[in-house]
Structure formats: C-alpha cells, structure tokens
C-alpha cells in the first residue's frame, strides 16, 4: 500500500490542517541541518499528542509504509532525512512542559520542547537542564534523545543519556509504552539507555522525564590565547592531569577565530594561533581554588593572554564566538563540511598535526573547533563548490580525518550521530559481527525495518523469524501470572 491511501486516515488522526501533501510545502522538509542530503517525503504529518503519534505509526505499520520522526530539524548527520516513499512525523506541535517537580529535580516534557525552554522553565526553581548542544535555542529534547546530544558542558555533566530517567515511546508497531521507571534506577534491561542515541530507528519518543540540576553557585570563565593549538593542548592535558574537571574546555584555531570574529565580533585576542575557553563551575570555595590552579597551568603552557569573564554578559559574549563557529565559517568559505570525530585526549596533538598536513597536501583549508576536554574534534573542511573538483577534494580530506581519528583509537562521531552521512564509515570502526550484534536490537524493536530505515547501519540485517523457546521454566511453572500469560521468565 502506498502513502496516498493513508491520507484520509492521517487527516482523521491529526486533523486535516496537520497533514501536508502540497509538493511545495513538502519540499521545506527535504533535509535537516545537514543540507548535503535531501529527499522530499511522500507525506508529512504533525500529530499533537502521544495518542496521535501512536495512531499514525500504527497506520504506517499496517500499511508497511516507512516513517521518519523529526524534531526541530537541526541534526547534523541527516538522521531526520525523510524517506521518499514514507511519512515524515514532525513533532514540533508537541511542545508542552508537562510537569516540573523541583524537589525531585525532575521535569516531564514533550518531544518538541526546545532544549533551552527546559532550562528556562526550571530557572525559577534554581535548576537547569544540563545537556547544551550549540543549537539549544531551537533543537528539540526529542531530537536530543534520538542523538544522545552532548554540548560544550558534557565534559563534566554528561550527555543526554545521563539526564533522561524515563521515556514514553511509540514502538515501531504503534504501541505506546514507557521505558524506565521514571526515577533513573534500572529495572530489567536498560532499554532506556539503549534507546537513547539510537537515532530514531527504534521508535518515536512522546514524553521525556529529565533530570534537572541545581544552578552552580559560581561560574568562572577564562579565555586564554596561545601561539598554537599545541600549546593550548598542553594546557588542557595539564589541567586534567591536575585532577580538575572543568565544566567545559573548548579550543579554536586561528582560522576558526577569524571566522567567528567576522560573524559575531567576539573580540578574541588579536593574532592568537589558538584560544582556549575554560569554564569552571560549582561551589564558590571549590571553584576559587581550582581557578588559581588553572590560571597558573595556562600561563605555564605559554599563554600570551588570559582574560577572565566573571559576569554573565561577558561570558555570553565569549561563548557566542564559540557557539557560532559552524555558521561563522560561512563568512570565510562558500561551502564546508563539519566533522565530528573523537580521539583520546592524549592523541589530540598528533591528530591536529595530521589534519594540518592533510590540509597542506590538498590545499583544502581546515578550521578547527573542538571540545578539547573530551577529544571531540569538529574540523570544518572549507571548499568552494563552484570550483570543479574541490567538493571531492574536501570530501577526501574529511574522510582522511576520520581515518586519523580511528587510527588513534577514536570514534567517527562524538555527538552528531551517524545518520545517513557516516553510515559508510561504520565498517571502518566496527567489524561485521559488531554491527550484526547491534542490529539484533533493531530486530527486537522494529523487525519490519520501517522506523527511520537506511540510517546508522550501512547494511540492514534481515530479522527473520526467531526460533525462541518461550516455555515456562519449571521453578515458575505454577505461578499464576505465567499461567495467565501475563508473565514470562527468561
């Protein structure tokens, strides 16, 4: 059955105004934040409740039509790239903050709520939501769950998976269920943990229970200038080596600084080969002690300037330079590729040197912006798409950078996800058996492979029939719940 036959039911479920069929309107959904991949969906629906999402998915499952969930469409790996014969389920109408319990430090939100809206709603209680991807003003919490989003402050506070304690999902067969007991304690298999970061391939999130954290007593930020990223890298190692875990340690190289200056006039130290942003937060008495140590270590590593930003406006100005970096390179290059490779922190210097020589050999410029504390690189590979051959050359450099990350025991993606963009690199990082094993999870959740198909894995696994023995074990045979078919024993 094709999508056309589904339209009347979708109108019944979501309301006629929330079903998009017009080809021009459909085109606005053709890509997410990664514009290199485009695909116009056959149909777009905007359900307004968990029940509507479940009904939509059930219809798709019955008809064998693929479906893709989309939040704010800010993803950088094409994870929300639509399916040409499928339904795109857009969750932006589901943006209620259902509940905030300040005593328990928990909030329940719908998937379309933006990341920053959670922190804003929690602020009156002295609380905030810790994961802070650079797109936090627009990106959705549902999308954050799909991608297991991080952000600059995940060095200290962890990723989305560390801040989600319950998920209401619609399974790929269209059933509503909860994962997790809502508290953060795991009972049975940790499906909540396995689901988070599965890039929309195991189901659609309809409610999220998140942890809220107390707003730190004090925050101090240092902007430190160096002649080179190597010196900055030394400071990073020394800070971590001293047993200090800053809230964030970010680095930008000269080219990235140039772009940020052009875009947001962040007024970073002129002529710096690299800048380091070190943010410390916590109880005042701890942060004061750490701050003097960090200052000393930064100076010893050869800092040419150390600037402290203690009030929120100053800090925001410095962060603006860093958080705008991706978009800013648009000021200095007509086109660019964003990479997301990760290396062990101790390999940062070696990999940056490799990137520099790749750039020199190819003539393709690379601007480096990275989460130095956890080794997550975001090389921005710059090219001019009007010059024949440059796009291919840039793609080659980009791939070679990921190879370098893997050589050093790293990962092809730290926070942007695999999506459609990096699935071809998965066999370089994992063996066939590893990928096959991961897909057992996919087969458990989505045996028909209708839920965001074609993402993450280069080759789908055929799930087939499972010859599972499902017989009660002798010790439990007499149990009434087993007899009634309400329980089973593994």
């Amino acid at each position, binding site marked *: 059955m094709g999508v056309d036959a589904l339209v009347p039911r979708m109108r019944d479920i979501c309301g006629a105004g929330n079903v998009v069929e017009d080809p021009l309107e459909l085109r606005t959904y053709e890509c997410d934040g990664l514009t290199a991949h485009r695909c116009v969906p056959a149909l777009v629906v905007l359900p307004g409740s968990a029940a509507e999402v479940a009904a939509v998915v059930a219809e798709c499952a019955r008809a064998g039509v693929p479906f893709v969930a989309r939040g704010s469409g800010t993803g950088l790996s094409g994870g929300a790239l639509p399916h040409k014969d499928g339904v795109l389920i857009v969750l932006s109408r589901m943006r209620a903050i259902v*509940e905030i319990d300040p*005593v*328990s*430090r928990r909030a*329940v939100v719908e998937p379309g709520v933006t990341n920053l809206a959670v922190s804003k709603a929690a602020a009156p209680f002295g609380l905030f939501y810790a994961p802070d991807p650079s797109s936090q003003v627009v990106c959705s919490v549902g999308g954050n769950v799909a991608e297991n989003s991080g952000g600059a402050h995940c060095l200290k506070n*962890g*990723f989305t998976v*560390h801040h989600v304690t*319950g998920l209401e999902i619609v399974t790929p067969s269209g059933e*509503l*269920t*909860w994962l997790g*007991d*809502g*508290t*953060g*304690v*795991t*009972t*049975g*298999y*940790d*499906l909540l*943990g*396995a689901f*988070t970061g599965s890039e929309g391939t195991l189901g659609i999130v309809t409610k999220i*229970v998140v942890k809220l954290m107390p707003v730190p007593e004090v925050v101090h930020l240092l902007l430190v200038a160096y002649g080179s990223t190597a010196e900055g890298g030394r400071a990073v190692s020394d800070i*971590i080596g001293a047993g*200090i875990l800053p809230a964030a340690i970010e680095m930008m190289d000269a080219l990235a600084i140039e772009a940020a200056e052009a875009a947001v006039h962040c007024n970073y130290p002129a002529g710096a080969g690299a800048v380091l942003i070190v943010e410390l937060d916590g*109880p005042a*008495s*701890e942060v004061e*002690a750490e701050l003097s140590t960090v200052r000393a270590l930064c100076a010893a590593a050869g800092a040419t300037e150390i600037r402290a930003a203690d009030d929120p406006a100053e800090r925001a100005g410095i962060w603006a330079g860093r958080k705008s970096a991706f978009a800013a390179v648009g000021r200095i290059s007509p086109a660019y590729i964003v990479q997301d490779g*990760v290396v*062990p*922190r101790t390999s940062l210097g070696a990999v940056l040197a490799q990137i520099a020589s790749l750039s020199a050999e190819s003539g393709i410029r690379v601007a480096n912006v990275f989460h130095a504390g*956890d080794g*997550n690189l975001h090389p921005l590979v710059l090219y001019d798409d009007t010059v024949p051959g440059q796009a291919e050359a840039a793609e080659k450099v980009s791939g070679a950078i990921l190879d370098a990350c893997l050589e050093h*025991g790293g*990962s092809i*993606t*730290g926070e942007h*996800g*695999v999506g459609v963009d990096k699935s071809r690199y998965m066999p370089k*990082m*994992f063996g066939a058996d*590893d990928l*096959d*094993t*991961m897909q057992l*999870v996919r087969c458990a959740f989505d045996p028909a492979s209708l839920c965001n198909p074609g993402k993450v894995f280069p080759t789908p696994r055929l799930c087939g029939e*499972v010859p*599972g023995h499902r017989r009660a074990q002798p*010790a*439990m045979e*007499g*149990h009434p*719940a087993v007899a009634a078919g309400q329980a*089973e024993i*593994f």
Partner: protein
Amino acid sequence: MDTERVTVPAPATALAAACPSLAVGTPGDAVAGVVPAYVASPASTQEAAGLLAAAAAAGLAVVPRGAGTGIGWGAPPSRCDLVVDLRAMNQVIEHEAGDLVVRVQAGMTIGQLASALASAGQELALDVPAAATVGGIVATGTTGPRRPRYGSPRDLLIGLTVVRADGVIARSGGKVVKNVAGYDIGKLFAGSHGTLGLITEATFRLHPRPAAVAWVTAEFGVERADASTASAGLVSASEAVASAAGSALVPSAVELDWPGGSPQSPRPLRVGVLLEGTASGVAERAGRMSDLLTAAGGGPVSVSGTAPVRWGALPDGATIVRVSFWVSALESVLKALVAAGESAGVRPAVTGPAGAGALYACLDPDTPGSAVASFVTSLREQVARLSGPAGPRGAVAVLAGPPTALAAAGAYRDVPGAALMAAVKDQFDPEHRMFPGRFYFAGGE
C-alpha cells in the same frame, strides 16, 4: 532441536578442546543451589568464544560467574550445565592515565583494579565490593552511594566486548568518553545478569581521586514510627535529604540509614552526606552542609573524614527489596515501608541513596518467604499509587531473596517495556540458554 532439561550429550570433548581448563562442576560451584555439570575458566575472549560456540552446539545452559558475590541475587537458574568462570581473565589491558580511561578483562576484581589505578591518582568511581569482579559489577548493575554524582556502571562504561550465546564476539563503544557511533550494547548488558551473553572486557571512564572527603551526618529521632502516625523525625529527615541532594553544595552522596529496631524502641534515622573536593573547599562546604541539616531539624550533626558505619553496605544474606521513587515522595515511601512491614509482620532495615531516589529494605535472612512476599506485595500497591498520568514514578524490585518469595511475588512486576525486553532476549539468546530463569518479568506496560 530440543534443548530442554539437563541431558548433557557428552559435550565435554568439544568444550575441553575449546577451553582446556574445563572441569566437572562440584557443589562448591553451585549457583543458588544448582550444581553445574561443568565449569570452565577461559583465558581470553577468543577462548571464551570457542567455549560458548561448543556450548551452543551442545545446547547447554550457560551461567557466567565472576567472584560470585552477586551470583545469589535473583532467581536460581532453571538449568545450569556450564559455569563460565571469568576469574582467569584478570588483567588491565590498557590504562592511559592522561585519557582517564581503562580497559580491563572482566574477571579482574574491583579491588585489584582500584590498586592498579591508585598510583595514577585515579579511580573507577563506583562504590562496590572490592571482591566483586568488574564483569560481575557490570552484569548486575551494582551501584553505591556516589551514583548521583558519577552514575552507575552503565554510565561509566564506554566500551564493551561480549561473547554472544552463539559464540560470536561483539564489541561496542570504544575507548573515548564521547562516542555516539552505533547502538550502545553496553547499556543493554549492564544489569542484564548474564542473560544476554558473556561480558569479557570492559572499558571505563575514570575520575581523579578527590584530594579531600568529608561525611556530614545528622540523626533524626523517631518517636513512634507506625503506619498511622506520621513521625516528625520522618518528615524532617525526608526534607533534609531533598534539600541536601538538591543543594548547590554538590554532594557526591546523600544516604539514609534507618536500622530496623522494634516498635517499642524505634531507632533514629541517619542522613549522611558525602562531600568531595579540595581540602579547603570540603571543609567550608561541610560547615554549610551541617547548617543545612541542622536547619532541617537534624541533630546531633557531625563531620568526619571517615565513613559512618554501614555506609553503602547491605547486610549479608538478607532479602533485599529495592524501592525507587521521586525524591519528593520520600516521606510517603518511608511511611509505605513502615505500613508494609506492619502488614507483613516484618521490620526492615532501610538504607540507601535516598537523595538519588532509591532505598533498600533489608529483611533478616530467616524471614519466611511468605512474609517477604506479603511485604513486597503491600509495598508495590503503595508505590504504584505514586505514579500518575505523566508516567511511572518508581518501582519495587526484589534483588535478593528466598526463591519461594521470588516465585510468589516476582522479582519485578509491571516493568515498563517488558514486551520489548522479551524481544531483546529472544534476539540475543533465541534458545534461552544464557542464565535461564534468572530474570523474571511480570507483564504490564
């Protein structure tokens, strides 16, 4: 292929060929009373893979075992042909101190690992028994008081190597802290109690050992703690836990400890807060935390550099019932524990990371199975009322207890996503040969 029951068709030759250490099981190898036909100690992941492939060919039920510290938790195996003892795999594979990452074999004990990391001033920030193995801790998902700050094994695990039921070796994650490539199989295996496959190697994120620590404790008197009388001490202890856990003083742990006592002579509740940091910072924060606990009605308040008695420890051999909840419901949960105890005629010792929304109710080892079941059933009824339309707010699980109680009440009940868990089990272990019988999920979404 019929894999039911124990008839072991002379697979010893194939097993021994795969793993020369194969031996016949002895009563000392019994898993919750079930003596295995064979025990083998593979020396490598490769050898373990050969062993599990041979076991698969023979249709054997396989039980992974580390030091055995948690092997008695949960239901006994319904079949146990082969125990795979991981203790021969006890080496650090890689410790890059500058990366704060360690990769270890699953049979290394937590104590051995702690010693190996101490020289670098680092630790695996899980407060778990030193005698337990790394693999056992991951498999059981054991946590300690510092979970609110550092997380559970699943949170610190960044890479995992497992051998599947069919003998295939699979890796997930890696050795970098930040990594979202592929599904996180480590999350699934953490807390899976050996029912999905055999854990052979694990990679963890480490933390620097804090320069200074302090425990701030306060007692809250309980005049009379019965179900019908809300004791003032119980109310203020609940408030103290919530405000300590939510304070910007960043405690690493907020524990509650309430020994059983008797209705005639109730024991006080103790709230204990662990602070970690620099020497001067910890001293200053300990002072402010003392003020906070005093203001909440606690007294006497004390500050110490050593852990209070029973810190993070659970009584040996006891039945252990875990309650999870939102912290705002702590007072209701404490009352529910009292009421459930009264109705079942038991007096549990209550202890655990209350600030993180969990408590363990511990019943004496000689408590009859019927009383345990009655206690659990009553507690579940009350905890279920805490959940609302916005989703589940907690659960009651029997982590360890007499088999009769586990059979009567169920270790778990109304577990969200139970049908999906069953599907995951079917995929990883279609013949249900990995620790059969250990996990028990009553239905209910």
